[in-house]
């Protein structure tokens, strides 16, 4: 369970360019379900995902993750939670060019300090799961859109996170690949993972895999959906 309590996020506070991205959001997100944040650009979905995933801190408010308040944690503790609890799939995938597919997948696990051979095996298993074994040694800039997306998903899973966060994952995919993505999410849900997706793609929020759609606009929740 992830509980948001009066989350507020202000950028450039006190300046003429001050912008309130989130207005006192309160929301409870159930574990082991697929929750979609739906809303137009600028509605605050990405900001909220960043805060939920401990990549940004709110201006005010608290987040409770599995009974533990996490927004007050010093950075060194927050880093561990971010690394071990969350797997991120970014809109533009954020794969590192110049290194291979398998190296990209292994990258988030390096700080964990596991033996390299074990890490490599885990990454190879994930690539096999996503039919990317033949691309393991290829540079990521040579991948097609679908392959890049699956590499990004594999990378998000390498630390075996409980929560998967995906920001507009289908924005650059055609219909077939978007449906393929949702099929993968179905498998994750079956494995008991909690999935949070920000998207305004109907293929995502109208999918039967999704348990709840939270509608946002102008940094506010206009419909919290049905739990």
């Amino acid at each position: 369970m992830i509980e948001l309590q009066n989350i507020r996020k202000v950028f450039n506070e006190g300046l003429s360019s001050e912008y309130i991205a989130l207005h006192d959001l309160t929301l409870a997100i159930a574990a082991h379900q697929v929750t979609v944040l739906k809303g137009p650009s600028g509605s605050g979905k990405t900001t909220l995902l960043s805060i939920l995933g401990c990549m940004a801190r709110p201006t005010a408010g608290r987040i409770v993750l599995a009974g533990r308040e996490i927004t007050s944690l010093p950075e060194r503790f927050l880093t561990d939670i971010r690394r071990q609890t969350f797997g991120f799939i970014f809109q533009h995938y954020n794969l590192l060019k110049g290194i291979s597919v398998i190296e990209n997948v292994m990258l988030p696990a390096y700080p964990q300090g596991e033996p390299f051979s074990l890490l490599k095996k885990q990454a190879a298993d994930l690539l096999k799961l996503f039919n990317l074994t033949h691309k393991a040694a290829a540079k990521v800039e040579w991948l097609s859109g679908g392959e890049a997306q699956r590499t990004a998903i594999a990378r998000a899973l390498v630390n075996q996170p409980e929560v998967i966060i995906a920001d507009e994952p289908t924005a650059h995919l055609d219909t077939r690949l978007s449906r393929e993505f949702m099929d993968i999410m179905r498998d994750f849900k079956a494995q008991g993972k909690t999935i949070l997706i920000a998207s305004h793609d109907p293929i995502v929020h109208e999918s039967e895999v999704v348990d709840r759609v939270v509608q946002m606009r102008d940094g506010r929740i206009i419909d919290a959906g049905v739990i």
Partner: protein
Amino acid sequence: MFFNPGIIALFISSLLISGMVLYASFYGALILRYWDIKSGSETQLNLERRTYLISTIISYACVFQLCSFFLFIYTADTLHPFFTGAMCAVGSLNVNKWGFPTVILKTITFLLAGLWLIINFTDNRGFDYPLIKVKYLLLLIITPLILAETIMQSNYFLGLNPEVITSCCGSLFTADTKGVASEIVSLPRSVMEIAFYGTMMGALVLGAVFYRTGKMGYGFSAAISVTFLISIASFISFISIYFYELPTHHCPFCILQKEYGYIGYFLYLLLLAGGLTGMGVGLLMPFRQMPSLKETLPAIQKHLTLISVICYLSFTAIATFQIIFSNLKM
């Protein structure tokens, strides 16, 4: 006033340190006043973010403060050729009334800055800022002392007059004059030897007990503090003469000079580091049961104890070696 690199460096560093701790104290006071970890208010979250910057600033200020202690002594020592009658730092410090009070205050701020660093290190190991109020309270105690030290040090440097005929260490650290130094020198040697080796042994035994069992932490810390003072007195009373190989020379500053291989810096570093870490153990004792420190604090205290014991053992070993193998036989 002299334009000496050491003086200029100390002037600038003291001003910088004072500015840093003043800035940090302002936010420290805000943290003491408004900190509420249970609140999700904007003020609280702002303080949580701000404390990283403030802690970093104070950490640097404290490290500078530790270094400035040794730089001050070194500068005072290098200035002595400019004053008639001075043979070491004692003569330079005696040129005006601000010299020795500045050294004493610098020793106090050295210890407090070190203790702050220990508290801060421990606080950073807890997930809920367990010692945040303690460390900012300590900062509010340190800040006026650092400001006072900056003023006293400035008065000392600005009041350095090469026309002044000063007294050398030989006239200060002798049994024939009045004052704390002469009283220490006058103490019976056998009493001081028993006190030094007795308290040192007691502190080391308590250190071993605490390291192995986690008990007697307060006792160890108190013993280390007492041993710190007795070691300084013993150095003046009977240890120093074996380094100088002169039974009447008790100066604690001449040993900082090149003729003695600058061994004094190392000995004082051992004493200060050992004293500081030992005192740190006692300072942390009340927080051993804090939920977020329960697992990490005993390990931190063990490390501090180990450092303290090694420093004091090394000091004792060097002093004893010198007493046994010195050309001076008494």
